[in-house]
């Protein structure tokens, strides 16, 4: 596939994230790929150990990904859901199955650089088998106009002794109206890391994310880290939910949000629930501004208060989750 076969503004759109989509086009770079241009599949590339299929439906596609038992992929599977139109509806139905003993990373890029009332919906089901190492990273860019209406819903089953890492990143551009729901079911001895980052930059932005982990298996462990900033009238609401429903499971929810400028709203709602007396679930939440000492330290390097705040927001939203 030539780079000219895909809209240039989508190819360039993730530069602020330091991601070059050109490297992920079929025939460019390594790894399996599925590329969508609005509601048309514009490219698929397969690799050994994985079956990637896409079927077009009226407003989008059904994407089936099967990772065969024992497959360990060094290069990530790339999914690009791009739209260079201002309006329209894109619906994605991903169905992902990772069979036992697999090791896979999936990188999804949802880029709508010209969005101005666009609608992107996703309804995903993921099944992760036993002893897997599965990472799903999704980076969004909704342009600089008024963003998009984005409503993805994901149900994820994580099998015994598997590690599942979820990274959701919406920190560049104008998000628009975003409603995200993620439900993760963790079986015995599994480990879940979920790292969600969002930045509402102006009054047009309303970001609501509900990230839930249900610890259903003995000794399952999880960390949800939700980081957000709201600036100049932007609104961010984050629900971090963890339920401990099995013996010796251990979960933690952390929500940190920074509010900048008049009219901005940040809300954090960690919700924890335990039904097993041996489980241990904790949460912490903080809202507000950065400590003055942090700002002073950066300003003593010659940065203005605004520059220092931007650096701290960038740092906060880049932080990786650790377990």
């Amino acid at each position, binding site marked *: 596939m030539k780079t000219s076969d895909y809209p240039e503004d989508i190819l360039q759109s993730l530069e602020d994230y330091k991601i070059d989509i050109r490297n992920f086009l079929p025939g460019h770079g390594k790894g399996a790929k599925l590329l969508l241009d609005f509601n048309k599949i514009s490219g698929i590339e397969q690799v050994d150990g994985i079956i990637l299929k896409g079927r077009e439906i009226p407003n989008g596609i059904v994407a089936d990904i099967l990772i065969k038992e024992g497959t360990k992929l060094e290069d990530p599977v790339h999914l690009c859901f791009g739209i260079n139109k201002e309006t329209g509806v894109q619906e994605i139905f991903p169905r992902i199955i990772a069979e036992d003993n697999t090791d896979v990373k999936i990188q999804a890029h949802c880029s709508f650089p010209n969005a101005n009332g666009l609608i992107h919906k996703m309804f995903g089901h993921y099944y992760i088998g036993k002893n897997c190492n599965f990472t799903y990273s999704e980076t969004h860019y909704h342009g600089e106009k008024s963003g998009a209406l984005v409503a993805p819903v994901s149900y994820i089953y994580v099998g015994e002794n598997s590690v599942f890492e979820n990274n959701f990143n919406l920190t560049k551009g104008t998000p628009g109206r975003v409603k995200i729901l993620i439900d993760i079911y963790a079986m015995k001895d599994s480990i879940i890391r979920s790292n969600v980052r969002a930045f509402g930059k102006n009054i047009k932005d309303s970001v609501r994310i509900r990230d839930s982990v249900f610890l259903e298996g003995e000794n399952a462990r999880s960390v949800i880290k939700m980081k957000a900033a709201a600036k100049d009238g932007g609104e961010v609401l984050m629900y971090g939910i963890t339920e401990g429903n099995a013996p010796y499971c251990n979960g933690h929810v952390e929500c940190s949000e920074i509010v900048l400028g008049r009219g901005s709203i940040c809300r954090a709602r960690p919700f924890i629930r335990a039904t097993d007396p041996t489980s241990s679930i904790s949460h912490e939440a903080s809202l507000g501004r950065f*400590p*003055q*000492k*942090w700002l*002073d*330290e*950066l*300003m*003593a*390097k*010659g*940065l*203005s*208060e605004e520059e220092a705040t931007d*650096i*701290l927001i*960038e*740092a*906060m*939203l*880049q*932080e*990786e989750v650790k377990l």
Partner: protein
Amino acid sequence: MLLELSGVTIPTFDQKCVILNDVSFGIKEGSIHAIVGPNGSGKSTLAYTIMGLGDYKALKGKIYFDGVDITNLNITERARLGITLTWQEPARIDGLSVYKYVSLGMKDKSKIKEKVFEVLKIVNLEPERYYNRIIDKSLSGGERKRVELAAAIAMNPRLIILDEPDSGLDFIVLEDFMNIFDNIKKLNMTILLITHREDIGMVADYGTLLWRGNHIITDEFPRVMLRYCAKAGLKAFCKRTLFKNGAVCFDDDYIDRIFREENLS
């Protein structure tokens, strides 16, 4: 003088009493100048006042940097003139890499990587091992202080204020820090060193003694230390320990005289 304080008075936050009272002294360019004094004497307040932190505004007095009145400049403006400060307990900021942090204040944005590596070497951190690390809790106190120093040096400032760089460090690391101060001095930077340890202060050319918010003396560092001991009534310590191996030695008569003067005052 690179920096001059003239009658600087700093009140407490509630303005009911003063932390620094009518303090005046100067710092020579290219020197290491130590500020000593017991806990609560106003050393850190002096450092924050010179840096221009928001809560430390002078009630009276003026601060001049290279002849320019900087009394009413904010922290950023002072930093851009060439003043910086390293904190006693620098912050741990998740998500910010050593590389990014050290390069924040660099004026020349070309060849950033080479310069970051260069300053990491000056503070005895292996660049390859550290530049990608995050300045969070995974760094030890000593490592974090070195990164802070590296970031300050990278700015190429004219004056670095080091607020108790010796706090919380073991004696092996302390020795290393003293070598680092020498390295900084070779870069033609002036160091204002806030400390209450005489062994750290011995790298200093000059010193100033603060006592309960008052300026007592500014002189060559050994003389300042001697006066400090006299104020504290530590004659035995002074004779047996303080200058026992030092390059500067005072005879016992001189020490006795200083102690007598102090008692009279």
